């Protein structure tokens, strides 16, 4: 049994579980956390899951865990692991079912004070324009041929159809399209589920939120991103919907046999994997990229719908109601990247599950306008609390495979949250704080209550203290749309 006393403290914000802590570990675990956050992590299975993740064949460096860590399935939420390309493994369970769940941030020139009285109308318009909730279906219905185009082209498909601008793509991770997606590696079932769900938010912790920029911490970065104190911004949090869920389900099932064929022993069957250069690994990678591209297109269509809602409510009432994109990042993804490991440039597959890419200044993957400031890192808080915009650093490239935290991180089960919080009471409390809420389900709202999550300020203080991201701006919610 591993306790806090088994961990080596590197700094106030970084800890190590040595490789010798358990016999089957291939690499150490590095945790970015304050002592308080780390002690809380021992309340669930996130530490055990991080140690289990170190048994994946072909790992390099350390398994990294972010301060918003919490128990998931197989791999902890907040986990980052890199496997050597091409002989290391890829694990669908270490990426998750909601492939390319992510966050998009749109900026504006809209002064909060000037449109405060329009926000309730804006909440209704966003709710009407952006389909959400259990089983929601989108306005865009795709033929199989069109779905294949979405799989292969992601946001480029959306640009061609008039849902995107060239700037949107430039300011999206991977420009909104991963190469190497192969729709032939996607099951008919996944395609059937995907065809009706493009342009939908879904339910659970997915949301659209209008925030006001509350405080700027780094003028240079805020200016480059277009963040202005007192102005509105929009966050869109969702993923690949049933399309991605089905692809992950199919391949977790498929790889149950592959681990036996490749004689891979794992402590948890949810971590099933296959070598990247095996037919099974290649097939999953090609299918996962289809889901990733679907999710990029999904958030793009929702951004288009949000822009329409803003136009309906604010055109003519404010000088400029447009919503230029700041950035779009992914949370659950496996990406082939090159990182410096022990002084050597190594091509790896970086698994991020509930963690974001956070590339530092000068990374060739970033658009020109972010070259000097680093990649925008979007960290939504829990409902009703602050969200943060950070920027990637040189240290994140050296110490966390260019990664950072993705949110607040849950501390309370959904069941407990519903027992302790009444959805209607919570809605009234949020409204009293000036936050306009539209929710598909009041019990669903209760599950996402702020007290069910860690303090996001403590999470971002940790990554900033560790140096793997720097603070740019704090956002305060004024409108929340939940499925």
């Amino acid at each position, binding site marked *: 049994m591993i306790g806090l006393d088994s961990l080596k403290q590197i700094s106030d914000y970084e800890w190590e579980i040595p490789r010798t802590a358990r016999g089957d570990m291939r690499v150490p675990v590095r945790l970015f956390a304050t002592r308080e956050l780390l002690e809380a992590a021992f309340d*669930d299975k*996130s530490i055990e899951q991080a140690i289990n993740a170190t048994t994946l064949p072909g790992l390099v460096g350390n398994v990294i865990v972010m301060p918003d860590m*919490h*128990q*998931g*399935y*197989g791999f902890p*939420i907040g986990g980052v692991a890199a496997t050597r390309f091409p002989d290391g493994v890829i694990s669908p*369970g270490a990426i*998750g*079912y*909601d492939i390319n769940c992510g966050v998009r941030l749109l900026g504006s020139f809209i002064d909060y004070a000037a449109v405060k009285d329009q926000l309730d109308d804006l909440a209704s318009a966003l709710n009407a324009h952006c389909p959400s909730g*259990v*089983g929601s279906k989108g306005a865009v219905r795709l033929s199989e041929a069109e779905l294949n185009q979405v799989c292969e082209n992601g946001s480029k498909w959306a640009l061609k159809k008039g849902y995107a601008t060239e700037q949107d793509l430039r300011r999206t991770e991977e420009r909104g399209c991963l190469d190497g997606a192969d729709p032939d590696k996607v099951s008919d*079932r996944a395609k*059937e*589920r995907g065809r009706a769900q493009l342009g939908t938010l*879904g*339910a*659970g912790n997915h949301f659209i939120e209008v925030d006001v920029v509350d405080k700027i911490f780094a003028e240079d970065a805020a200016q480059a991103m277009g963040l202005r104190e007192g102005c509105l911004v929009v966050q869109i949090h969702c993923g690949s919907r*049933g399309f991605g*869920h*089905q692809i*992950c*389900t199919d391949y*977790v*099932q498929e790889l*149950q*046999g592959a681990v036996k064929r490749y004689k891979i022993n794992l402590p*948890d*069957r*949810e971590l*099933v994997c296959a070598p990247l250069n095996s037919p099974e690994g290649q097939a999953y990678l090609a299918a996962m990229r289809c889901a990733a591209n679907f999710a990029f297109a999904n958030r793009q269509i929702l951004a288009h719908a949000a822009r329409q809602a803003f136009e309906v409510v604010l055109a003519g009432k404010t000088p400029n109601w447009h919503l230029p994109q700041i950035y779009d990042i992914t949370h659950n993804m496996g990406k082939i990247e090159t990182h410096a490991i022990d002084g050597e440039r190594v091509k790896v597959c970086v698994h991020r599950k509930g963690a974001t890419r956070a590339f530092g200044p000068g990374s060739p993957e970033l658009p020109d306008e972010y070259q000097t400031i680093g990649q925008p890192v979007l960290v939504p808080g829990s409902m009703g609390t602050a969200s943060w915009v950070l920027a990637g650093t040189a240290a994140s490239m050296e110490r966390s495979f260019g990664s950072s935290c993705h949110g607040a991180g*849950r*501390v*309370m*089960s*959904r*069941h*407990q949250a519903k027992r302790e919080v009444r959805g209607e009471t919570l809605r009234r409390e949020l409204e009293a704080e000036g936050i306009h809420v539209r929710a598909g*389900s009041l*019990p*669903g709202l209760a599950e996402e209550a702020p007290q069910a999550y860690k303090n996001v300020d403590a999470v971002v203080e940790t990554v900033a203290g560790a140096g793997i991201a720097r603070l740019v701006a704090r956002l305060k919610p004024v409108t929340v749309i939940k499925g």
Partner: protein
Amino acid sequence: MQNTSLQPGFREQPHTADWALEVWASDLGGLLQQAAHGMYALMQVKLSGEPREAYRVEINAADREVVLVTFLSELLYFTQRDNVGFDQFDLTWEEQRLTAMVEGAPIESIAKEIKAVTYHNLEVRETERGLEATIVFDV
């Protein structure tokens, strides 16, 4: 979420982010039924009375864990495709093959969506209650 007054049964277990469901029954067929009942209870599915609809499910599986995950994943797929939930099950497990007739009705209301059935720490164990397992659902 509990159904312990009668054997077999199911009970929700604590999980920080997702849902964990403990199920038990005297045999594998009963375990699959309890798991299905528990899964629909977690989603708070309410079925309309009519029309009743029946589906045939056939699964070849190397072990009991695979059949459990595959069976529930099949039901979830039908639920999401056809907006149907199931409450009656006729199951036969012989020589690594499950043959099932599942019967249900259109869903009148549903509170929560399950994204997937996971293998996380899944083990079908033999205990004094017969067979037991704890299934983690991604929500």
